């Protein structure tokens, strides 16, 4: 992963997280592979990407590490960065936290125990299933919903992309988020405490808790946790990266050494609907895929979904099984999980003494609204006025050729001094056409009498537009503008219409 050609874009982050630290993103761009197409800018849910200077640039302040750009980049120029098991060799005690999505990656696995045992074979000292913590979070949520007074619907906070998306696009909905630590964090805390109790010779610093992650968002969660200042997880490995290592060990396991302790509820968290259905309350909605999620959040933001108690949102299609670090097709993975969970008890993990404390957020996530035009209201209003004017002047076809995802986004960039109106290809085309016609009319009017610097200026402009600014103006003067074009390429031009092609 530490290929020197990979370059992290826009390091000047002002993105604030729960701990108000700098955000270390896990979605990166390989500049050498980027062709500057507009695929990623059109799919980015927070309009965080622009194509400038021939390649994509990711704005840190807006990136929520959802991985959509990784998914849609046909040149594989977008990548997720993640940790390696080898980076943690020096720790005396290593605990694996497998995401339930991991279990759906393998064909013909009869039981979870085989996968968990293979993790131990790979060098982990202990395995703690995140699905166990998910069952605890489910119980917490059931109790939380019973408490009167909380705004409805409550929104799930398990997917870090959703929290950041809400923080950036729907700040009014931040207080609807379920204020409980994500299963990954709950799992890490319990696993750490259990290891310390079991091995008194260990200190906290001896233990590395490593998450097997289905997505880049959880990788950046570990570095920039939500709801707590510091995560109890040390690193996040990629499921896809670890897959083959795990597979080779699984083949040789006949007697599993580790016994799985998750129920149907915990395993079901891997797919959309798993978290919501565990609430035993039919007043819920479960949506997945970032575009669908945005539509649902718009509805909630408008106050249209008041009759629901709970909304489960997952950034990836299918839920966590749809994360870009997985190997398997999300729907196949989900089908396998259905088989794996079939004869499991409903739930095997509970809140200790039924108490709610200990799993709540230490701090509330706090975000800067990245699209804010200015801290000063009057300045922001002035900018908005210009944005509205410029947007009306732009063609409104949202083609993306300027490097911004929409005409409105270009207008914002122009007003913020990051782009100019001539970045729009249609604006340039109109300017050129207007110029061409005025010159043609001029030529027809004055005919061959017209001479001097004005004409040379015009020619220079046309050549500049055609990409040949350095060539000296030709003194030769043809009758018609069309013919003129063909001669304008200068004495070096061999083909008679070479200049016309350039100008076109």
């Amino acid at each position, binding site marked *: 992963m530490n290929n020197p050609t990979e370059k992290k874009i826009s390091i000047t982050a002002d993105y604030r997280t729960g701990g108000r630290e700098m955000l270390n993103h896990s979605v990166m761009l390989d500049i050498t592979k980027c062709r500057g197409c507009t695929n990623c800018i059109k799919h980015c849910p927070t309009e965080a990407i622009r194509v400038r200077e021939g390649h994509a640039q990711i704005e840190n302040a807006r990136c929520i590490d959802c991985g959509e750009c990784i998914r849609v980049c046909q040149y594989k120029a977008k990548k997720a960065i993640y940790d390696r098991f080898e980076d943690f060799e020096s720790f005396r005690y290593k605990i694996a936290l497998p995401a339930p999505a991991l279990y759906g990656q393998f064909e013909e696995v009869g039981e979870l125990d085989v996968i968990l045992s293979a993790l131990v074979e790979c060098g982990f000292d202990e395995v703690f299933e995140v699905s166990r913590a998910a069952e605890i979070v489910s119980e917490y949520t059931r109790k939380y919903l019973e408490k009167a007074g909380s705004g409805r619907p409550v929104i799930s906070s398990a997917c870090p992309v959703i929290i950041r998306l809400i923080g950036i696009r729907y*700040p*009014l909905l931040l207080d609807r988020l379920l204020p409980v630590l994500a299963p990954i964090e709950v799992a890490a805390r319990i696993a750490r405490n259990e290891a310390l109790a079991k091995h008194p010779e260990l200190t906290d610093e001896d233990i590395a808790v490593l998450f097997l992650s289905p997505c880049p968002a959880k990788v950046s969660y570990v570095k920039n946790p939500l709801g707590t200042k510091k995560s109890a997880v040390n690193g996040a490995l990629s499921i896809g990266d670890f897959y083959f290592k795990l597979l080779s060990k699984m083949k040789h396991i006949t007697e599993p050494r580790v016994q799985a302790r998750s129920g149907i509820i915990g395993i079901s968290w891997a797919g959309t609907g798993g978290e919501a259905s565990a609430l035993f309350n039919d007043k819920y909605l479960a949506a997945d895929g970032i575009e669908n999620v945005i539509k649902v959040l*718009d509805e909630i*933001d*408008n*106050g*249209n979904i008041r009759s629901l108690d709970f909304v489960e949102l997952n950034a990836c299609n299918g839920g966590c099984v749809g994360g870009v670090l997985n190997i398997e097709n999300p729907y196949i993975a989900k089908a396998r999980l259905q088989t794996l969970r079939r004869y499991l008890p409903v739930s095997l993990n509970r809140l200790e003494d039924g108490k709610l404390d200990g799993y709540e957020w230490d701090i509330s996530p706090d975000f800067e*609204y990245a*699209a*804010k*035009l*200015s*801290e000063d*209201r*009057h300045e*922001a*209003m*002035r900018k*908005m*006025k210009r944005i*509205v004017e410029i947007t009306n002047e732009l063609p409104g076809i949202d083609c993306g050729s300027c490097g911004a995802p929409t005409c409105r986004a270009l207008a914002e960039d122009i007003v913020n001094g990051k782009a100019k109106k001539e970045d729009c290809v249609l604006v340039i085309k109109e300017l050129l056409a207007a110029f061409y016609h005025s010159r043609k009319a001029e030529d027809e009017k004055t005919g061959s009498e017209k001479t001097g610097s004005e004409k040379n200026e015009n020619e220079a402009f046309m050549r500049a537009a055609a990409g040949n600014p350095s060539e000296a103006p030709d003194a030769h003067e043809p009758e018609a503008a069309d013919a003129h074009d063909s001669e304008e390429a200068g004495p070096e031009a061999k083909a008679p219409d070479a200049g016309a092609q350039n100008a076109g």
Partner: protein
Amino acid sequence: MADFVRLEYKIDGENFTSAGEASVMVKRNLRQMGFDPEVIRKVSVAMYEGEINMVIHAKGGVATVDVYDDRIVIVLADEGPGIPDIELAMQAGYSTAPDNIRSLGFGAGMGLPNMKKYTDEMKIESVVGVGTTITMVVYV
């Protein structure tokens, strides 16, 4: 500051599925200008209700939102059937929405009352057979 920002939206009366979109745009713009969340909430609810009304009753219209630094003025103008009895229409629960709209959860008779509730000033001008113009003001 005498200057203001004008946001204009054509409300498409033919397409019920797009009802509410102008409200979303207004909300986004106000947010970018850094208005208080409560102000944004009030404007967007009032705007949303009015937008839905225009789609249900008037086959669309034009929404104009003028943003001043101390107030936001929303003008919703349509060329619909007009409101014969404004006092009656303002009563909570009174609705003339058709059944197919009610089945979508609209038409509870709370549109106009909500618009009044969420704004600081509201004025309804309506002529039967000509159209309705509603002006609402939310102070910042």
